[in-house]
């Protein structure tokens, strides 16, 4: 995902032209929203943080220096920092996401569908308890369907380090998943 000349031009124009910034916004708003959504787990916070990320980008775009990395790497970095602050500042009270509430209120579902949704909720919960870099890797790989090389550019690591991190993330996810299932089975018996 190297920065195409047109994007590079767009970024330099965006420093003085609101319309060019608007085009960058249109191009990346969904990606940033998805990233924040999966990191926070609810739509309301995802909207707040996405808006903050783009306001910050707008205020600082004149300081952006093109180092050959995709512009999205810079945007993801802003979003990543905002999410980190959000996690730090969040109070200890339990937040139930609107999406989860919607899911609960939509019941009853056919059993298979219900089981699948339970699995998905559990997986999301496990993912949200993983270290930041592992969460970021999974979101970029599965939601954005990026290659290891693209992820490496965004996360500022080597391709080899990303491969290794992916491998470790999957194994750790599998272990946690299996551990939870065993725990449930022993509770049930």
């Amino acid at each position: 995902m190297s920065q195409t000349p047109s994007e590079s031009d767009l970024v330099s124009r965006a420093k003085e032209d609101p319309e060019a910034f608007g085009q960058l916004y249109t191009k990346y708003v969904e990606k940033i929203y998805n990233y924040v959504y999966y990191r926070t787990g609810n739509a309301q916070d995802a909207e707040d943080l996405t808006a903050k990320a783009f306001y910050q980008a707008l205020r600082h775009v004149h300081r952006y220096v093109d180092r050959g990395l995709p512009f999205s790497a810079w945007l993801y970095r802003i979003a990543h920092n905002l999410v980190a602050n959000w996690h730090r500042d969040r109070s200890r009270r339990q937040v139930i996401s609107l999406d989860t509430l919607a899911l609960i209120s939509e019941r009853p579902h056919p059993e298979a569908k219900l089981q699948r949704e339970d699995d998905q909720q559990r997986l999301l919960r496990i993912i949200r308890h993983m270290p930041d870099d592992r969460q970021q890797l999974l979101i970029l790989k599965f939601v954005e369907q990026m290659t290891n090389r693209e992820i490496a550019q965004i996360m500022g690591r080597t391709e080899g380090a990303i491969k290794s991190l992916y491998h470790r993330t999957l194994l750790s996810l599998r272990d946690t998943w299996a551990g939870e299932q065993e725990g449930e089975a022993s509770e049930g018996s």
Partner: protein
Amino acid sequence: MSDESMEEAVEEAARLLRLRAEPNADFVQTLEQSIQRAAYQHIGRPRPSFDRMVIELRKLVRLLCRTLVPIQPRSAFVSALQRDLEETAHELLVRQERVWWLILGGVLGTVLSLLGLLAALLLRRRNGRMDAKKPLLGAG
């Protein structure tokens, strides 16, 4: 050691510290495997066989593909944010332009004041010289 070379040495040391050390991927993987083996031994659970592990990982990846899907933000949110960003961008430009005019005005004002001061000084010196040349009344 001169100040300059010391500064260079400090800068070089800082640069080296800033470099992110990345372990070799193979080393990390081997270490991971041996730690896993030790962990399974510790909890007294047999390590899953390679085939079982592959099957479990495949299942997990399938579940990840089903779970981590792109989400569409509300279109009302996207368009409202775009409108707000455009307004803010225009305001920032106007504010920036205003700052430039203020700076320009300040510089121009300073230059004009300096020129005025210089002109006053020159005028005063010339008047002083003319006064000195003027013959004293009643002299001679």
